[in-house]
């Protein structure tokens, strides 16, 4: 295991950092299995996982709809909830990216800005935290399926997440990764965009679904539940039997339940 990041806070105990899991509202409500997978992976990477009970949302709905004061209110709640942890880790590039933007919300409140900056510094997306901060290079998981991977935009462009999930997936026993065309093109989710402009969003996710289907993979993975709900919703409507999992579920060996939006009696994919 590599040295902890030089940006690690001073109070971090040498080899067992206390990681606060920010589960994200979508994983909390729609896919608790992603939270459990994140806990398992963080523990594999030698972290002590805490789940602050007062966490709620990252504030992105307000931030991206122009309500900066509302976003700041939500942000204050998150900052207070996680200030005691060495790190804040989220199974979402989008929410982690939002946390990194917190200082912008407090431009004229120096004390809160400082706290927001400290929070931004210790915030990481799950997979890149495992590889880049904790130096994890292999996981003990089996998933004998052909999969393809969608690069979620915020993780890709705001946090530089591209290679990290692929590196870990390469070590999953039996897994074959087939790249889709335009893996870096937006799926059309975009938070409230998908309900404000459903027809445009629908076209974008239909294009994404056909790129996925063209790979011949029966499973699509990604690192952000927003995108994955959108993609699963489209694939489900098309009824072509392609399953959707968060990459953490596969890496933790916990993709043994039906995929997102699959019928409850559908078998899990790890077999």
């Amino acid at each position, binding site marked *: 295991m590599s040295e902890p990041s030089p940006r690690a806070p001073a109070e971090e105990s040498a080899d067992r950092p206390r990681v606060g899991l920010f589960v994200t509202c979508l994983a909390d409500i729609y896919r*608790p299995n992603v939270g459990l997978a994140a806990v398992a992976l963080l523990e594999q990477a030698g972290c002590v996982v805490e789940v602050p009970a007062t966490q709620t949302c990252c504030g992105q709905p307000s931030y991206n709809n*122009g309500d900066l004061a509302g976003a700041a209110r939500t942000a204050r*709640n998150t900052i207070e909830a996680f200030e005691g942890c060495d790190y804040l880790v989220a199974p979402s590039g989008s929410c982690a990216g939002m946390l990194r933007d917190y200082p912008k919300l407090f431009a004229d409140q120096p004390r809160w800005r400082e706290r927001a900056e400290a929070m931004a510094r210790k915030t990481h997306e799950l997979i890149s935290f495992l590889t880049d901060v904790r130096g994890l290079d292999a996981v003990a998981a089996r998933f004998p399926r052909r999969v393809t991977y969608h690069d979620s935009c915020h993780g890709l*462009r705001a946090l530089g997440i591209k290679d990290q999930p692929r590196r870990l997936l390469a070590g999953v026993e039996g897994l074959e990764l087939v790249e889709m065309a335009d893996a870096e093109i937006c799926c059309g989710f975009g938070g409230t965009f*998908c309900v404000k402009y459903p027809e445009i969003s629908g076209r*974008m996710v239909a294009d994404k679904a056909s790129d996925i289907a063209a790979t011949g993979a029966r499973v699509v993975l990604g690192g952000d539940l927003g995108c994955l709900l959108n993609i699963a919703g489209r694939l*489900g409507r098309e009824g072509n039997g392609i399953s959707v999992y968060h990459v953490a579920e596969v890496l933790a060996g916990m993709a043994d339940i039906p995929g997102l*939006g699959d019928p409850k009696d559908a078998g899990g994919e790890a077999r």
Partner: protein
Amino acid sequence: MQPLSHAFKERSVAALQDETLQVALHRAKDGFAVKRAKAVAGLPEFDALRDRAVAIKNHTLEHLDHYLERYAEAVERSGGTVHWAASAEDARRIVVDICRAADAKMITKGKSMVGEEVGVNGALEEAGFEVVETDLGEYIIQLAHEPPSHIIVPAVHKTRGQIADLFHENHAKYGLTRKLSEVPEMVNEARQVLRGKYLAADVGITGANFLIAETGTSVIVTNEGNGDLTCSLPRVHIVTAGIEKVVPTVEDASTLLRLLARSATGQDMTTYTTFSTGPKRAGDPDGPEEYHVVLVDNGRSSMLGDAFREMLRCIRCGACMNHCPVYGAIGGHAYGWVYPGPMGSVLTPLSVGLKEAGNLPNACTLNGHCAEVCPVRIPLPDLLRTLRHREYQLRLGLKPLRWGLAAWVWFTAHPRIYRLGTRVQARVLALLAGRKGRFTRMPLAGGWFRGGRDLPAPQGETFMAVWKRRQKEQGR
């Protein structure tokens, strides 16, 4: 041109349903993005050049008054005349007056987005002049009586068949009556028609990609050579340009030129790069007798002092729209104003107001692809978000969305109640979905389903509830 941005939603849905348009958009899809990626990969210093370009543009904007004055002096020194147009109306009037004073009948035009912005063609036609666009794409949309749908490929929304029909209808009067089907034939025919216009033109109007302060030179890039013929054959050459086009030196212009074509079409250089400085001098074999520059402000100087200053770095390469998945789905006309795509979604509300164009900054997933490819690193998603903030402050957005957000914020700041709400939501949705595991419709959530997709159901228990139970079981 009246802005139609208020009807963005209807226009975008119509665009998605327009099969011919979709054929054209699909054909164009990825073409420029792939070519740009190749050109960038072939130039290791591309990112360093971008930094240099940002520095040049920022420095110039910081001292814009100084460089504009130096530019104007240099133009006058070379025998040209500079006209300052504060508004679109001023610009139209100035151009019409110059053409009248020159006793012009026929006017040729090179492609100019600022010309589209201020509505030069309409004003000239109203004043009785014959105006002919000489860029092939602009020529096509002029025949079709349409505005451009892209800032560098204005007719990208047209299929070959539509263009063949337009030529067939419009070229009969020149004795060209054969219906064409092959691209080279069509290009040749347009060239044949345009040649006559170049020779007959009294005034040539071009835009400018750059204005060079130290020499008073205007620079245009084209792939057809039409710009050269437009600015050198007629008696009078008029350059119309936004005030942000000025750069200090020839060296600066050449730095920006290295980025422009690569970002736009993936070419190392455009086929023609034309430098024009003043009218014909004694002894010059060709060139215009008069050289005018119309410097257009039209809202630009007010952007200098606010959050949108960075937008003035824009060199109009079109890379943002070439990489925008929303633009790729609906094309440029749905945006309802001169500049489409991400850069247009910033500029349009600033120019026609948020009340008219509030949809544009919202019709974006904030995926960041545009900012990633912008040669002058304009943080387009941040600027779009700033416009959303402005819209929110002005209370212009959708009311139900506003109420929904306020309620959500309240919940997020009250964790206990939030916990309870999410537990109920997860449980109820899972129960309602039953064994199927997803919804095909749901009251009050029509938007999601109108996108042609189902909604996966929650697992049933929230993560926070599972975690709490687990902690209890483990006696922690």
